[in-house]
């Protein structure tokens, strides 16, 4: 019998707020241990939480960008369990009335449904060092959203793709920085196997705290294989929590259902229910950036980009924003996309600057594209122009003059360049005459180099052919 895997994910994403979820301590990564703490996040006797409205707004933004419906009334619950990283011995979370419900994302032409998104607080961090365990509570109380999917994923590749898309959406929205290596984004996966085509899910296991894309793929693949082997040999999967070991690449049982926690959830009496007003929803929606999934379909349908180009543009929000601005300013979408994924991306990579918006006036970029399209400058000239506009911060007019980029009507110069190339490379000329057509593009390149982008390849090609035919 053939089996298929059923996967559901819980994606934990730390929110990019200035302060923590229930106190005014800084929400910062990498600070000296236990410096961003106060009576509230340390859970000292008598301290009380005060909800950070910005965290609620970001969680609502996430819900909107992932197509959820936003609850008009929400509240928080206490999830009770003992662990040294949890200062109050309960986590403020949402079980009964989460902030966002439903929603989902399409990956590989399949819609993956979300069950909910809720807003909770992160726990501190335990650092095991020289035989002792050190508690660092800087992370305690950092706002976190948990994005819970329905069991709609069917393969580790799907899971990776889905997490990547969610991550990209959150980064676009300024909701989460998406840095898995810093723990800003962590994934729990529920996995089961069932006979292919079946409607009845098998017993699932849960793998906790996977913190890289590579590990998601490896951990899921390993766990699916383990379960399939087990089931095909007549065994049974037990409901349990498993841990992925990065070194061995295997998963290990942490605890079974029998010793699973009873979290004894109940509404947190310290935090009044929150009513979310229509105008609040409207204000947040108005300030929202368009989600990458929506941009992707717009780029590929209305703007006619290939899926590959669309993905390349979308890989960073700033390139996508730059592209959108250029298209609204009248640029030809395909030309704009080519320049952005080529020259602009190269310039950004060289600058090493990861976050700043692209510093180039949109009007100049659009004008440069138009000049190239009208054959007033060559593609080679366009690259020179973009590079100069980006690094020298000068306008297209000035660049064109400074580097004399306009295509020359001077046929004499073209002829001279052609003659000089032919004269200097008799070997290639001989090859051409012996029927090797490929050498033509090489010679053309040589001529273009000599002309420094000031003549159009077509014009040069014609002259070159004429000269060679002689």
């Amino acid at each position, binding site marked *: 019998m053939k089996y298929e895997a059923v996967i559901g994910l819980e994606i934990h994403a730390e929110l990019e707020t200035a302060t923590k979820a229930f106190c005014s301590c800084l929400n910062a990564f990498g600070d000296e241990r236990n410096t961003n703490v106060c*009576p509230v996040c*340390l*859970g*000292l*006797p*008598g*301290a*009380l*939480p*005060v*909800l950070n409205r910005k965290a609620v707004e970001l969680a609502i933004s996430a819900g909107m960008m992932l197509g959820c419906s936003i609850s008009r009334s929400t509240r928080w619950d*206490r999830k*009770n369990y*003992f662990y*040294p990283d949890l*200062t*109050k*011995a*309960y986590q403020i979370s949402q079980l009964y009335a989460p902030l966002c419900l439903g929603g989902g994302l399409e990956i590989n032409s399949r819609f993956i449904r979300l069950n909910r998104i809720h807003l909770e607080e992160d726990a501190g961090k335990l650092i095991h060092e020289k035989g002792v365990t050190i*508690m660092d509570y800087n992370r305690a109380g950092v706002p976190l959203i948990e994005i819970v999917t329905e069991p709609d994923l069917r393969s580790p590749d799907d899971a990776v793709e889905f997490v990547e898309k969610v991550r990209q959406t959150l980064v676009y929205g300024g909701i989460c920085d998406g840095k898995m290596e810093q723990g800003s984004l962590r994934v729990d996966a529920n996995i089961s196997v069932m006979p292919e085509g079946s409607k009845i899910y098998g017993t699932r296991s849960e793998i906790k705290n996977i913190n890289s894309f590579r590990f998601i793929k490896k951990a899921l693949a390993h766990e699916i294989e383990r379960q399939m082997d087990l089931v095909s040999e007549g065994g049974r999967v037990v409901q349990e929590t498993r841990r992925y070991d990065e070194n061995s690449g295997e998963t290990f049982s942490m605890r079974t259902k029998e010793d699973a926690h*009873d979290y*004894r*959830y*109940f509404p*947190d*009496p*310290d*935090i*009044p229910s929150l009513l979310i007003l229509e105008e609040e929803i409207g204000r947040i929606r108005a300030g929202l950036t368009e989600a990458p999934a929506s941009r992707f379909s717009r780029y590929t349908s209305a703007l006619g980009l290939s899926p590959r180009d669309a993905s390349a543009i979308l890989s960073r929000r700033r390139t996508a924003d730059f592209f959108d601005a250029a298209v609204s300013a009248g640029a030809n979408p395909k030309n704009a996309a080519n320049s952005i994924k080529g020259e602009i991306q190269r310039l950004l990579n060289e600058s090493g600057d990861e976050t700043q918006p692209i510093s180039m006036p949109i009007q100049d970029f659009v004008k440069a594209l138009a000049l190239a399209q009208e054959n007033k400058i060559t593609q080679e000239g366009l690259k020179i122009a973009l590079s100069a506009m980006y690094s020298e911060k000068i306008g297209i007019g000035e660049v064109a003059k400074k580097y004399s980029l306009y295509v020359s009507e001077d046929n004499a110069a073209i002829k001279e360049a052609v003659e000089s190339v032919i004269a200097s490379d008799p070997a290639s000329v001989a090859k051409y005459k012996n029927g090797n057509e490929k050498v033509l593009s090489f010679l053309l390149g040589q001529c273009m180099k000599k002309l420094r982008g000031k003549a159009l390849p077509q014009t040069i090609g014609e002259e070159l052919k004429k000269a060679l035919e002689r």
Partner: protein
Amino acid sequence: MSIIEQRQLLDRREISAIELTRSYLERIEEHSGLEAFLHVNNACEAAAAKAQARIDSGESLAFTGIPVGLKDNLCTFDMPTTCASKMLKGYIPPYDATVVAKLRSQDAVFLGKLNMDEFAMGATTTTSYYKKTRNPFDPNRVPGGSSGGSAAAVSAGLCSAALGSDTGGSIRQPASFCGITGMRPTYGMVSRYGCVAFASSLDQVGPLGLSAKDCAQLLAAVAGADGHDQTSQHSTGLFAERSSAGMADDFMNSRYEQFPEKAPEIHLGVVKELLGESVEPETRQAVLNAAEWYRNAGCQVSEISIPILEHAVPAYYLISSAEASANLSRFDGVRYGHRINKPSSYEDLVEKSRAEGFGWEVKRRILLGSYALCSGYYDDYYIKATRLANALRSEYSRLFETYDAILSPASPMAAFAFDAVPEDPAQLYLADICTVGAALAGLPSLSTPCGLTSDGLPIGLMMTGSRWSDSKILCLADAFERSFKRPAPKINAS
């Protein structure tokens, strides 16, 4: 001497803040046998000197230089805050509770921290890990609880007034046992920030004083919305619009003066269910006499019935214990509080530290509360209890459409002897029937002395109003107090 009289003496320089403080310190020393204090503030003379400087500069406020006591569950950055538990022995918080900070900013003088039932769980102050506070009216009897130290100290004149906390009756019942006035304000009127949580949806900090007027003074000083407590003044009631100073004015000037004329407009209800068989006859008679006093003063007085009160005690114990089970989980021995030596593991550390650090009553409630929240029992216990509380709230709202305040005893009996504390905790819990209703409904409720038993023990009249009608019930109590001589304890605690 009332707080207002002390204020006048201080402001007229007829007594200095230091002299006043010293006179209280002497009384505390003299009556140390009462065991009201867990900690006497050794810096209170310095605080009095600071208060005096403020008085001298002519900038005194209502509590500048007034010596007050604090229940030991209110965080103080300069004194231990133990909640009368071994768990927090020697624990000094790094911050002041909002109510403490408010009084400190007026340069009130904190005489020290007052005994209580461990983590405010109890009605006798005998669950304190440290000491047994005695009733100033009879050293062989309990002072009530959980704010028993606060009530005993005020009653015996060991502080001008004190702050306590009331979760299910912990201010009103000890006030009635010790013959003073104590008030549970409307839930949300006073910040809970820094009051070590027992049951968050019920805990409310409030005043204990020698009169309703003194309580009003202290309440006005500590009331008000607090950015550190989202449940403070969350509801937009009458008081939400008013400053706490406005409330004091309201009380002191207008309503107080108007009582005789306003009396015919006032409609009082006497709760039938709280004057039944289970109430001691002397208590019943004293409360009926007080009701009669109001009738004679011109008020309309009727008997009312709240049948649902029958279920209030179990609902209260389920909700308060459920919340307590979560609130007290943070005491795990990891960051602060009692910790065992050489634990073998994290689990061992938590289990044994808690086993050693908590007393039996606290453990009982944690177990009860944890059980009520378990999956499978949650709907049957916790949810059912919250439904009962909602029904009770509606019932009170309906009553307050007709009645200005509701009268009852604050306890079915007067203070009982230490050796008469029931063995069966359920028996003791049942005595909370008078006070838990107002707590579950978040209503303002106070107790004021209205009589003495033949044994010379005080009896408390409880008066409960609608949400945010705090000044109204204080005025009504004040009117009664002006014609009823407060019984003075014949302190003999040695």
